């Protein structure tokens, strides 16, 4: 059995609720079929809180092995580095995170808040929020960049706001089984972050022919004008559909880049900054001159059914 302790810090609870939507495996299956034993989860455990305190003490004293520590929420360090804006029994939650992390086989940041600071770290960052091992996109958060867990891993960042349900349960299933878990440069499990949101978007034919929407509610691509970050954002939203049925971009909502360390970006979230007619930020790894040449050709090649936005998405 792999023991798991889930701690909420400066959180909205959205990752805990999102994980209830996972189906393969579901949270129930993690428990019954993947050898995960939940020592504590704040929303789901039914024992009284004194049990929580006892388990916590046993973990910190080393009597209880902790295999997986999940942290959900920003690390609140205000006021003046005390962390008391987010406390438990008068103690800063960030201190509890530090204590538990030292005992854990592996620490998993569930969601962008715990990974990078997230929405609570947006300007002016009233709670002086950090991620566990990153401060937005800078290495080093509550824990220094060189920190490693008992199993020799940095904090595993399952980012997303909320994290994709399957990126959470499948990461946990893999860790419980002891499988290797290759990470990317932001310490995210590659398996869930080695594709862009754009990939699999049903608006791709419009994007392909450079047919872009000027205002919301239409069928065409949202990248050039409406702030969509899909071509730059690494996540499985369009290859493993949300709630088994769709994704934001399929439903006409721009991708806000919520798996990225700089989410939410400090700009109008529904518009795309441009140089001339072309977005400032281009799809991952693309050169501007070549992209402009390609886009000019693409629009000329658009079939009427696409140019006239006749195709459903």
């Amino acid at each position, binding site marked *: 059995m792999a023991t798991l302790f889930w701690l909420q810090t400066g959180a909205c609870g959205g990752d805990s609720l999102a994980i209830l939507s996972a189906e393969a495996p579901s949270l129930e299956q993690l428990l019954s079929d993947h050898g995960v034993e939940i020592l504590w989860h704040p929303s789901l455990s039914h024992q009284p809180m004194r049990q929580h305190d006892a388990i916590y003490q046993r973990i910190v004293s080393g009597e209880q092995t902790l295999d997986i520590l999940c942290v959900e929420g920003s690390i609140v360090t205000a006021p003046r580095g005390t962390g008391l804006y987010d406390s438990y029994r008068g103690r800063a939650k960030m201190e509890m995170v530090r204590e538990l992390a030292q005992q854990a086989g592996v620490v998993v940041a569930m969601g962008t808040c715990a990974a990078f600071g997230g929405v609570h770290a947006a300007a002016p960052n*009233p709670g002086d929020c950090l991620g566990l091992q990153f401060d937005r996109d800078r290495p080093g958060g509550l824990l220094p960049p060189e920190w490693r867990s008992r199993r020799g891993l940095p904090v595993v960042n399952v980012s997303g706001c909320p994290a994709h349900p399957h990126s959470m349960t499948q990461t946990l299933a893999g860790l419980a089984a002891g499988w290797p878990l290759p990470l990317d440069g932001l310490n995210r499990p590659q398996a869930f972050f080695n594709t862009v949101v754009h990939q699999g978007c049903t608006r791709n034919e419009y994007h392909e022919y450079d047919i872009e929407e000027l205002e919301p509610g239409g069928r065409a691509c949202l990248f050039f004008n409406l702030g969509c970050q899909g071509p730059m954002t690494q996540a499985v939203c369009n290859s493993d559909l949300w*709630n088994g049925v769709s994704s934001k971009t399929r*439903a006409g909502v721009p991708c806000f880049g919520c798996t990225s360390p700089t989410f939410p970006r400090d700009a109008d979230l529904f518009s795309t900054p441009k140089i001339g007619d072309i977005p400032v930020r281009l799809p991952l790894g693309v050169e501007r001159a070549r992209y402009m040449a390609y886009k000019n050709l693409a629009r000329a090649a658009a079939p009427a059914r696409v140019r006239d936005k006749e195709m459903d998405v």
Partner: protein
Amino acid sequence: MARVELNLNLNRVEGDLEIAVVLEDGVVAEARTVGTLYRGFEQIMLGRAPRDGLVITPRVCGICGTAHLYASVLALEQIWQLPVPPNAVRIRNLCLIAEGIQNDLRQTFLFFTPDFCNPRYRDRPWFDELMARFEPFRGSVYRQTLAQSRQAVEIVAQFGGQWPHSSYMLPGGVTTPPDLRRILACRSVLDDIQRWYEQVIVGAGLDEWLALDNADAYFGWLETPAHADSALGLLSRSARSLGLHAMAAGTPHMLSFGAWCDPQQASGRLLPGGFYDGDSATLSSFDQQLVNEHVRHSWFRPYPGGRHPLNGETVPDFQPNSDRYTWAKAPRYGDKAVQTGPLAELMIGGDALIRSLHAAEGGNAWLRQFARVRRIGYELACARRMLDELSAAIGQPHILNPAKSAEIDGEGFGLIMAARGALGHWLKIKDGAIAQYQIVTPTAWNASPRDSNGLPGHWEQSLVGVAVQDPDDPIEIGHIIRSHDPCLVCTVHMLDSGKRLRFAP
């Protein structure tokens, strides 16, 4: 007299919670609800583009982001004076209902009923049957709730792309039109949930259940196997045998903003809202001018009395060793502490059974929970109506985008019934950016601390007089607080827990 002060922790709420109670001879004499998290959403909004509220504010709360999205878009539409096409209103309502069904199911069977599985109740006649249905992760209804609530939010994903945290309601409408595929996918989900609700939860067809209109008829029905053996019947029998129908009324005053916007008439509501004055037992229309928030006992820079949200401020001033004790503000309606939630929604909205039960026994913990499960019936009926109307109106507009010139400066508000009750966003736009943003959540009303006049909030009032058998396992408090459907992250500035036991001389 034995005087005991307890700081109680509660899990299985949306966010943790600390309640400080003073017991005198085992009975709660005073209670304080303590929010121990400050995140500062209202500061984060300042200076941002007006539409950014549609992305940022749903993230206040993981369980009711759709309601925040709805309140935020209504506020922008009020300021910019935008018409909204009926199909957009139908889709918004449908998604809000799906989130509501999710909440009402999870709150009831993942958060509330697990307390009845406490070993202290093992000699009760209902215990074995209750464990078979409600035991966490094992009981049949618990497991079905996981599956059914997972399915419910698929409806939001059909139109919003994902649940939680999407931003598909935009000024003037929604991002996705209704089409046959989406409508039928939603119908299929709804049909499944309704069948399960009828067969397992209430033990009757929806029409028969919603037609039940008085307390005597309900108590009679509770004796029949069809309902007695249903999940709600079991919940009612066990809760009532513990006396939850005779305790924890809290404040008698209730507030509802009215459930679900009328697609044909933007300002109308399908289930009417208003203010119920519990002293005079009279209903009056709601006047948002009377909303005001106090910070006398909160960790914010002090100001005298209460302030309307448009003139409010949220400047942290953490003073842990003073008579100020929480990150929650104290909203008041005029000078009254009010409660909001499904009980208020159905009482004010005119449900005859809830009104009759309230007249017979007054407000109480069981009735709050009962109202939550009954509301699912209304949610199912309204969702079906929205889908029927949408299917007859495919091809009609789903969004009327405003002209850039319409996006003027100004001030306004958006009021909506979230799963936990009345939710309001008040904001000002100046020079094209957000200059003021104040959110008053349902839990801010319910979990409010004392105000400038020393008047306790609804939860604080509801705990006074409750007998606690075992201070080490104060399960009575758990029943009562969870019957309020607490959402502590939902108070925007609040949350969390801790326990210390102190005996005063």
